[in-house]
């Protein structure tokens, strides 16, 4: 286990380094004078020159990259001249609501996907299986902004039971008004659920064909016991990997959901930054989100290895 852990952490570290190279390259894609693009049209020549010096734009690329990493390691992710705030401070303020949104949606999606997937697997090729498969295809194929707006129309306009937008401000105001969380969480959960329940269905089907199921049945275990005691545990394990793999996709969904509900998270921060062409915010958020997904998949892989000891002994190739 220790060996596996060290190897996996080492891999994650390499990936983070590559992510930083990618964001560095992205920062160099800016057209024309990068200092001008970042500081805006009103910046004076003196400011531009100072900025060029601070970022080392006159140095060779490799030195610039070194300076970039050095800044990152000191917690300096850039400065938003549009918001007049450091990117680190903006992210610190906007990240917790996104973590809350993503966390809750994933929990809701898994809680619903597991029984739904098992139900489909045990009623394979019967009307209920076809119906749920059809529904999950529709949810998967639906642009998530449309789904969000349909939920708003239904619950906030016609039924008038839930607020249409999320509370503004920071984490505390989001927590103070939990009703505002319901629709965003529902939207993101439904998008995620479609994929998870399909995965759970095939995972359960795979397990139902295994020898241990026949053994359990031969021992006289009831179908209920076979399903909940034996199959459920084994079928759940791959879901952990799926969580790690799908984290980037879930964050894509969060970006859209936050846009639809005006939810004060990191996705909306990013979207606003695209509108105002606030490149330091865009690059800083991209880097932090990427590091988050690397950490997420690391945690998923390690939990998988804890749950399924076979993984630890598999050597590459």
């Amino acid at each position, binding site marked *: 286990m220790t060996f596996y852990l060290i190897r996996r952490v080492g891999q994650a570290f390499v990936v983070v380094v590559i992510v930083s190279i990618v964001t560095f390259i992205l920062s160099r894609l800016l057209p024309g004078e990068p200092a001008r693009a970042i500081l805006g049209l009103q910046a004076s020549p003196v400011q531009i020159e100072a900025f060029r010096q601070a970022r080392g734009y006159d140095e060779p690329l490799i030195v610039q990259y070194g300076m970039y990493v050095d800044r990152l390691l000191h917690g300096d992710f850039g400065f938003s001249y549009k918001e007049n705030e450091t990117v680190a401070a903006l992210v610190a303020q906007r990240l917790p609501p996104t973590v809350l949104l993503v966390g809750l949606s994933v929990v809701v999606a898994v809680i619903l996907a597991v029984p739904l997937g098992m139900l489909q697997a045990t009623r394979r090729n019967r009307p209920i299986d076809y119906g749920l498969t059809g529904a999950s295809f529709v949810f998967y*194929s639906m642009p998530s902004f449309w789904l969000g707006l349909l939920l708003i129309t239904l619950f906030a306009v016609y039924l008038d039971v839930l607020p249409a937008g999320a509370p503004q401000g920071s984490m505390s105001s989001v927590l103070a008004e939990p009703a505002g969380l319901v629709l965003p969480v529902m939207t993101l959960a439904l998008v995620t659920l479609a994929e998870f329940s399909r995965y759970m269905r095939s995972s359960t089907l795979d397990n139902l064909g295994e020898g241990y199921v026949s053994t359990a049945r031969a021992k006289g275990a009831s179908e209920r016991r076979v399903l909940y005691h034996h199959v459920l545990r084994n079928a759940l394990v791959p879901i952990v990997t799926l969580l790690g793999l799908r984290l980037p996709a879930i964050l894509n969904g969060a970006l859209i959901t936050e846009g639809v509900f005006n939810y004060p998270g990191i996705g909306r921060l990013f979207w606003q930054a695209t509108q105002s062409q606030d490149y330091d915010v865009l690059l800083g958020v991209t880097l932090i989100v990427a590091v988050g997904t690397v950490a997420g998949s690391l945690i998923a892989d390690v939990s998988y290895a804890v749950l399924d000891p076979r993984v630890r002994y598999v050597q590459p190739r």
Partner: protein
Amino acid sequence: MTSGVGDPPGATPAGGEAAAKGGLWRLALGVFVQHRAALFGVGIVAFMALFSFLGPVFYHTDQVHTNLSRANLPPSAAHPLGTDDVGYDILGRLMLGGQTSLEVGFAAALVATGIGTLWGAIAGFTGGFLDGFMMRIVDGIIAIPTLFLLLYLSTVFQPNTLLLILVIGLVAWLGPARLVRGEALTLRTLEYVDAVRMMGGTRRRIVGRHVIPNTIGTIMVNTTFQIADAILIVAALSFLGLGPPAPATNWGAMLSNGVNYSYAGYWWLIYPPGLAIVLTVTAFNFIGDALRDAFEQRLQRR
């Protein structure tokens, strides 16, 4: 094969006959005959393509000049699906939007598959240090959620439709690269690859003539899903205001424009493009699923 356990002796499991007779294309054809969902998928895709590209030949509408005096009209004989907020006929606009959605979907998927296949085949076949190096690059880029990367690139380049295809393709090639690399790793240990090498075949020949053609099943399945994803990505970008610029439109742009009028009750602005997206994306997913079933059956036989 689990499905064959209870079958009478001599019975051919579903899909088995086509697979047994070999031929990849014959196999693919067999899939569509047997899977009703896949047939439905092909039907929808064919219909949408004909509707979008041939429709305007038969159904003439003015999609250039706005006409505010005819804005937001409900469906009628003159406008079967009504008009939108600047007076365009929605049925005609649906054809125009379909062209962009399908073009971008197809082209971006092809770009992504092309780059990914080549990258994965070279990495997997060469192995060693180069493989590790190339795949770590993939790991690094895949860690950045697609939409964030795309939005950044769209903000910097403000792409037209052609550039958008390239940008989506450049972001989406990572999945196919991983898949093909995995297949190439297996393929390079097979005997016929050794045989080619012994006969003096160059690496380029082995990758180009033997490795890639053998991964074609995986590639086809993946391309189908890529098209579906690309159509959704264009829709998401349009909603976020970074889609293909006007005067081009696409189903996603029509939908995100239409949802502004959710509260006004102008349903004809919302449901036609919304349903077009859902139907098309579902269709491609059905096709992909059926193809994957077929190729997996074939793999199990090997």
